[in-house]
């Protein structure tokens, strides 16, 4: 149950860098996610680890063994495909024991392994059915069982839940994590769904345009995003543009329209253009215009009831827009058009240098 190391791997398709000098270590028995918008290179990276494609340069290690020239069948991996890729001409059972069979195990061994993994995925019915007769959830379980039966030590999952409906998806994602943990496997899970990645991963690598932009635990990524992109992609953020006017123990920021607020010190120098990122759920809202330090004044533009949360969209006095989420059960009833004052804990607002390419481009997915 090995660690997986990627060292300076580059993969180009024509002139486009699918992966641009990527390095990464996935620890032994870790449940690791590669997260990013489509086209960020996450699937390419997973396929490189599996050996389904070869890197242009760089090294890939599984355990102590360098594998980038090793064919996929000799890497001891299990791969769960987004489309499941269950062999249509074999029954569910035939699919499951395919791995042991092509590895030349005898029938008895293959049967034993088959039953063991089916036990794990809690599926012992409809084994003589063909893939096109199974439901999405069942196909998914068979796909995982098949990958495990081949004796995988590393489980690679390419958007394994993408084809399932929401309810089943939520159930199965925890099961997959549990199985990986029970079997002490190293698991690498590719997804574009940040909620999915956050809920099951030990650590996550956020990718963008062929590069890894941040690696960390779900909490780290959420609490301390290292870039506007991560702040935007993981969870939700309000972005307010402005300038640093003073750095003196704390930073003083002038927002559009001359509104001055304080923020935690950063290494950004005075007079530089910045973006302040504030998460909607860290904000407090009080009725009326109050003269509080760091209060943002505005009017409620739109209210959406979302069940757990009430979502308010607020037009600030300086014209900026801000979204805040409040737990619905504790909220008082307010109406559209009312004046409100928004406050937030200083340390929960992150300052980023204004991106060269512009804010929209930076956070575009």
């Amino acid at each position, binding site marked *: 149950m090995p660690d997986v190391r990627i060292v300076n791997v580059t993969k180009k398709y024509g002139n486009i860098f699918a992966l641009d000098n990527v390095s990464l270590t996935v620890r032994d028995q870790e449940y690791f996610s590669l997260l990013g918008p489509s086209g960020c290179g996450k699937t390419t990276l997973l396929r490189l680890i*599996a*050996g*389904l494609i070869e890197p242009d340069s760089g090294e890939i290690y599984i355990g102590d063994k360098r594998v980038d020239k090793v*064919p*996929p*069948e*000799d*890497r001891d*991996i*299990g*791969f769960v*495909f987004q*489309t499941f*890729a*269950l*062999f*249509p*001409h074999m029954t569910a059972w035939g699919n499951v024991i*395919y*791995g042991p*069979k*092509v*590895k*030349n195990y005898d029938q008895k061994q293959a049967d034993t392994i088959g039953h063991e993994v089916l036990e794990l995925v809690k599926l012992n019915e409809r084994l003589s059915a063909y893939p096109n007769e199974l439901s999405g959830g069942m196909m998914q379980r068979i796909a995982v069982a*098949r*990958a495990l039966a*081949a*004796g995988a030590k590393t489980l*690679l999952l390419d958007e394994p839940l993408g084809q399932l409906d929401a309810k089943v998806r939520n159930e199965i994602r925890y099961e997959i994590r549990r199985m990986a943990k029970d079997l002490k496997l190293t698991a690498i899970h590719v997804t574009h769904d940040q909620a999915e990645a956050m809920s099951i991963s030990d650590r996550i690598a956020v990718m963008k345009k062929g590069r890894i932009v941040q690696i960390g635990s779900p909490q780290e990524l959420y609490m301390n995003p290292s870039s506007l992109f991560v702040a935007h992609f993981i969870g939700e953020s309000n972005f307010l543009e402005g300038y640093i006017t003073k750095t003196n123990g704390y930073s003083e920021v002038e927002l559009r329209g001359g509104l001055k607020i304080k923020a935690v010190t950063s290494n950004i120098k005075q007079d530089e253009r910045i973006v302040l990122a504030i998460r909607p759920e860290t904000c407090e809202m009080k009725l009326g215009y109050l003269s509080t330090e760091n209060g943002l004044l505005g009017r409620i533009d739109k209210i959406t009831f979302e069940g757990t949360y009430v979502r308010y969209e607020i037009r600030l006095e300086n014209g900026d827009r801000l979204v805040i989420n409040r737990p619905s059960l504790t909220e008082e009833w307010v109406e559209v058009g009312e004046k409100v004052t928004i406050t937030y804990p200083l340390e929960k607002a992150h300052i980023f240098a204004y991106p060269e390419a512009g804010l929209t481009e930076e956070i575009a997915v």
Partner: protein
Amino acid sequence: MLSKIWNKLNALSSRKPLKYTLYLSAIVIFFAVILIPPIIGILIKAPTIQNVINQPTLMNTALGAISNSFSIGLIVAAFDLLAGVPLAWVIARGKSRWLSILDTLADLPFVVPTAALGYSLLLFWSSGGGISSFFGGSIISPGWLLVMLLHFTFSFPVVVRIMVGAMLDYKMEYERASRTLGAPPLTASRTVTFPIIKPSLIAAFSLAFARSLSETGATFIVAGAVFMNGPVFLQTLSNEFKNGSIPLATYEGATAFASIILIVVSLAIFSLIRIFGQRVKLPFGHGLPVFEKKISYKKGEWSRNSIALIVFIFIVLVPSLFVALPAFQAIASGTPLVQAFSGSGIWVNFWQSLLLSYGLAAIVTVLGIILGIPMAILLARKTFGNWLSSFLDTLINIPIIVPSIALGVSLKFFWQSIPGIPDLLLLIFAHLAITYPYFVRSMSAAMERISVDMEEAARTLGAKPFTVFRTIVLPLTKYSILSGAIIVFTRSVSETGATLAVTSKLQTAPVLLVTWVNSVRGSIASIPGVNSLTVGLACGILILFSFIILLVLRLLTTKGKA
């Protein structure tokens, strides 16, 4: 005026009766012109078999020839798969830019009309000028081996085409999954890829087999006097009848006898292939994983690819194009070229036959498209329910399966009982019957790929059925229509067996070529002015013309795809 009629029809088209009338007429024409006449024709003449029942020598010759047809067809189809699948693999999976050239080259034997192909092979394998000259004479003399080589050569592109298509459609994800589960490349192909593309393997085998059964003209050229298969036997009968060496009763009886057996056995074999094809489960047995692993990688792959390429180049490509050599000699020597293009002497016949061939092919193609489209829609959309659709589907295949000379003979038997039918019309009917299934197949496959949703979306947006067809179906299927048209056209230009069977007055280009070749070889009375140079030149011109037409059509199709 025209637009008024169109609008009127368009408005009418949402009424069911018009739609059904259209579909029904497609079915009626299919039965009335294509399927029923040959069946009735052969039944009319069935009693004449009595005349030959008591001629054991003739019967034995017939049976021997027919069994030759089937054994050659089966062996050739098997070899086609063995050689064609690896080549298709190289074309479909390779990454080199040169592969598109290989892809085009693989189609070349398609372009060469089979009669010219037969002559080309004869020159290459068994004349003093070809490969044989290196071995001091002919290495393969006319006979069964040369027939097999010929059949291998012309059915090879069919197999490659089908298999390349199948491999491109095949979802690589299955094979990747197999690899991640521990299967080396060869094991993955054996256990996953081939079982999944099994229907295409069967289709390729069947078509190669059918092509081999039907081919007449070229086979006649390379068979020599020593070897007979079904079509050659039928053609010989007809020749013998014409020069008076056998009486009408014997001719009709033996022809009916051989045709019926050919048709019945073909139908039986194809039904068996169909039934067993579905039953046979791939992969069988365990294979040899360790051995497979050994030959899966670099060296094994390299030698496999090399063998596939060598077979293709030296057995298919070079022999097919060898006829270009005398063509160039003819051009170099000057005189035949001048004669040919001034249309003097024997060349009058040549240009007439060429005109007839291309004119006929054009008419047949247009008719095929007009009659084929409603049938294709009917099959793809199952307009009259599942049962009738699959029934029609089976019937459509019959003209492909039945050897074309037997089809021609049957057609002739039917239509000759109705006086006053011009030979040209018979020729059109025969070619239509032979090519119609190819067009319908290609078109209905394309229709099946268009989701019904799209048509329904157009309807909900206010389009009448005709408009839906014109604005949605036609644009989406036009390249399949075009490629179907190409097949129909080339098949018609190449067709010899049925042509010989239905008319002795009209000479199409391949029929003329067969006569010329036989004159050069002395197997018939020699025609003044025909020599190896003129035959070479004639072949060259035929190939060149076909190539240009095909190139234009191909450019049209690829342009559209890009």
